[in-house]
């Protein structure tokens, strides 16, 4: 079967160590790593800073031992103009999303180990994650397994400039 060559992994959350994530190259509409386009990422590590503005946002940093990934969880679903079209079209859904985000924000505490998934964005020239979801990891081996996943994926998948798909 002929294989299709892709140069993008924008539809999945890539698992990257912090130093690798923070070194992504910004392109006009997305980010790239060694020529591979990426738009979503997953990180896992210890929360080492927390800046909470109720009803607006929660900014926090996740330290995985190789770097600190800045993360932002928006909490302004009910007030931001960005969400205005969705407020008009799906108020119940938006209320639910606001409740989930508020609940997740209360779980993010200094010293907790969290797994964060979201969009790769930038703020003042630095890479950050705009959080889609964040969960607290209670397994003491979770960080180790994440490191090993990141190493395996980097070497076997992300380092290839294009991905072969059957």
């Amino acid at each position, binding site marked *: 079967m002929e294989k299709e060559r892709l140069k993008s992994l924008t539809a999945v959350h890539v698992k990257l*160590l*912090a*130093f*690798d994530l923070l070194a992504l190259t910004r392109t006009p509409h997305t980010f790239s790593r060694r020529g591979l386009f990426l738009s979503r990422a997953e990180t896992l590590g*210890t*929360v*080492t*800073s927390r*800046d909470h503005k109720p009803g607006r946002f929660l*900014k926090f*940093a996740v*330290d*995985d*031992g*190789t*770097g*600190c990934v*800045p993360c932002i969880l928006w909490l302004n679903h009910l007030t931001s103009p960005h969400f205005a079209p969705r407020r008009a079209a799906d108020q119940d859904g938006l209320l639910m999303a606001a409740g989930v985000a508020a609940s997740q924000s209360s779980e993010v505490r*200094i*010293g907790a*180990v969290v797994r964060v998934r979201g969009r790769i964005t930038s*703020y*003042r020239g*630095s890479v*950050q994650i705009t959080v889609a979801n964040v969960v607290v990891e209670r*397994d*003491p*081996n979770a960080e*180790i397994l994440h*490191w*090993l996943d990141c*190493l395996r994926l*980097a070497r076997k998948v992300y380092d290839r400039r294009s991905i072969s798909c059957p």
Partner: protein
Amino acid sequence: MESAVKSGALLSLEDLHPSSPFFADGSSLRVIGKLQEYSSETALAIIVDGSAKLKVNTNHLRDLSFRAGSIYQFIGELHIHQPENEAILQARVGRNVDGIDLNLYHQSLQLVRQFQAERTGNRMAQ
């Protein structure tokens, strides 16, 4: 926030010796070890890993309870006290990690540091 928080470099206690590049005042480190002693009066803890030990100042950690024999992980800054050249970690984050697979942790830590050194050309990471 982004520039204020330094990442704690992954380090085994056995690699923290006076000739190590990490043995420097202000180094941000992440260490792990078994709690040997804890004083609630001074908030000083001593953790051990194999034959290596480290004193950890935990006075900023309000919500952590300490139990001798349990495994703890700390992130913080190293302070070198003279003239004894004694290293004390001023912890800003700590947690109990009882149940961690220490052999897997140490092996994985080496792999992560090796990978990071390959990619960044930073020999400190090795």
